[in-house]
């Protein structure tokens, strides 16, 4: 796949169809790939990589990149293509400036996931059909990508792309047994006291690095409300539990109805806070209250929070329905 992508990108570059290529570059070790813009065949040849460690969603970079001269090629995994479609829908990316190439994906992993399986000191790896042979400081370790999947990949909703100009590899299908709301349901089933204690435990680890916001393809405001002193809620550090709650509720709320559930927030959290539990709660509620909706799915349907029906559920009764006492 990697070679196929490299060749296609190089061809489009030399044909002059695109001016730049947005992909992933290899790092020091095998797992530390970095989103990178490639401008030549040589750069692609030297650094381009597509591996089970390419979990990063590249679509947000397009907001910045598409403002530059010329056309940019971007490689999108199925989940990334939803983010791209949503950004196009919100007019954050001019569609004509981007050449989107869908690439197949069977789930990604990262060093954190491998570390939780007790695999440390990774310095290299080889992959074949989802099986990883890891070269570590303590010898060779074998593991499948499926065993060490990223949280976002464990609950993958579809292997089918949206809004791509071409596809490399085979188009996948929606995941029929996707159980992404299971965790949310588990939390809902707790008593309020348990829920409170659970989230306090998770959110208290927050260091307010803002990585969840900065990586989020739905967070594309020019100045975030949390960076704007005039908003009255601009905060740098998690000063106390209230700040943690406020930040995380508002962060999730501001992307409600636009969040495609790409799972980047949870992937990047240095403190491993399951942030998707907040985003998915909103998605689940939206589905239940206003009918099934998937952000980035199609360009027409209005976002649930910019839409209404005369007989929408009332706030009081909805809470009683959603949460359990």
């Amino acid at each position, binding site marked *: 796949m990697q070679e196929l992508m490299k060749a296609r990108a190089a061809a489009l570059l030399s044909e002059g169809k695109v001016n730049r290529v947005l992909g992933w570059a290899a790092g020091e070790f095998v797992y530390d790939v970095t989103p990178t813009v490639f401008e030549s065949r040589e750069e692609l040849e030297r650094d381009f990589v597509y591996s089970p460690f390419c979990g990063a969603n590249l679509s947000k970079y397009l907001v910045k990149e598409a403002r530059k001269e010329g056309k940019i090629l971007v490689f999108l995994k199925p989940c990334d293509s939803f983010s791209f479609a949503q950004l196009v829908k919100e007019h954050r990316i001019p569609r004509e400036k981007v050449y989107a190439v869908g690439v197949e994906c069977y789930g990604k992993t990262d060093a954190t996931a491998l570390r939780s399986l007790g695999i440390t000191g990774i310095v290299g790896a080889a992959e074949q059909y989802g099986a990883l042979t890891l070269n570590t400081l303590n010898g060779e370790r074998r593991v499948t990508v499926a065993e060490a999947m990223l949280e976002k990949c464990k609950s993958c909703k579809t292997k089918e792309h949206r809004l791509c100009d071409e596809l490399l590899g085979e188009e996948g299908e929606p995941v029929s047994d996707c159980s992404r709301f299971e965790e949310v349901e588990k939390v809902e089933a707790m008593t309020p006291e348990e829920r409170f204690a659970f989230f306090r435990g998770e959110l208290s680890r927050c260091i307010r690095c803002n990585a969840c916001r900065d990586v989020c393809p739905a967070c594309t405001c020019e100045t975030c409300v949390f960076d704007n002193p005039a908003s009255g809620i601009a905060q740098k550090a998690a000063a106390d539990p209230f700040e943690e709650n406020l930040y995380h*509720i508002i962060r999730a709320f501001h992307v409600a109805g636009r969040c495609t559930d790409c799972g980047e927030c949870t992937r990047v959290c240095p403190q491993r806070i399951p942030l998707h539990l907040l985003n998915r709660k909103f998605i689940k509620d939206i589905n239940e209250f206003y009918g099934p909706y998937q952000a980035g799915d199609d360009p027409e349907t209005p976002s649930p*929070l910019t839409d209404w029906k005369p007989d*929408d559920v009332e706030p009081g009764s909805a809470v009683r329905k*959603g949460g359990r006492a």
Partner: protein
Amino acid sequence: MPMNSPEKNGVGKEEAFRPKIVAFCCNWCSYAGADLAGTSRLSYPAEVKIIRVPCSCRVNPTFILRAFGRGADGVILCGCHPGDCHYTTGNYYTRRRMTLLFSMLDYLGIERERTRVEWVSAAEGAKFAETMRDFVATVTALGKNRRLEDLRCRN
């Protein structure tokens, strides 16, 4: 307009707990409803602090959270009845937003009875007073807001 008594909430062990309630009221209906309640000499609890807003949809989720952070024990949002919005559709958006926000607060383990949305027209002075009495009673029964307070603001 009934004025609120000086704040003496939750001070001292013997004193009965008196919650702080923030009521966001739409200028075109509930605020007028509160006025009507006042001029009709319908009493409603002095614990309720009214903040007038141009439309219920002016209320952004951070308003609600900040009210709690700053010491509110309950927050109620009053707007025009669905279909009667002065700006045609504002309260429909409010309804969706607050539905999701309240559900999220409940999900985080914050007592759901502390938040409420009520539709009160300018003619419903009695409903306004009754709603406030009921809400204050509910929040009083719950006690002080501890789960969504800002410790720095604790009295």
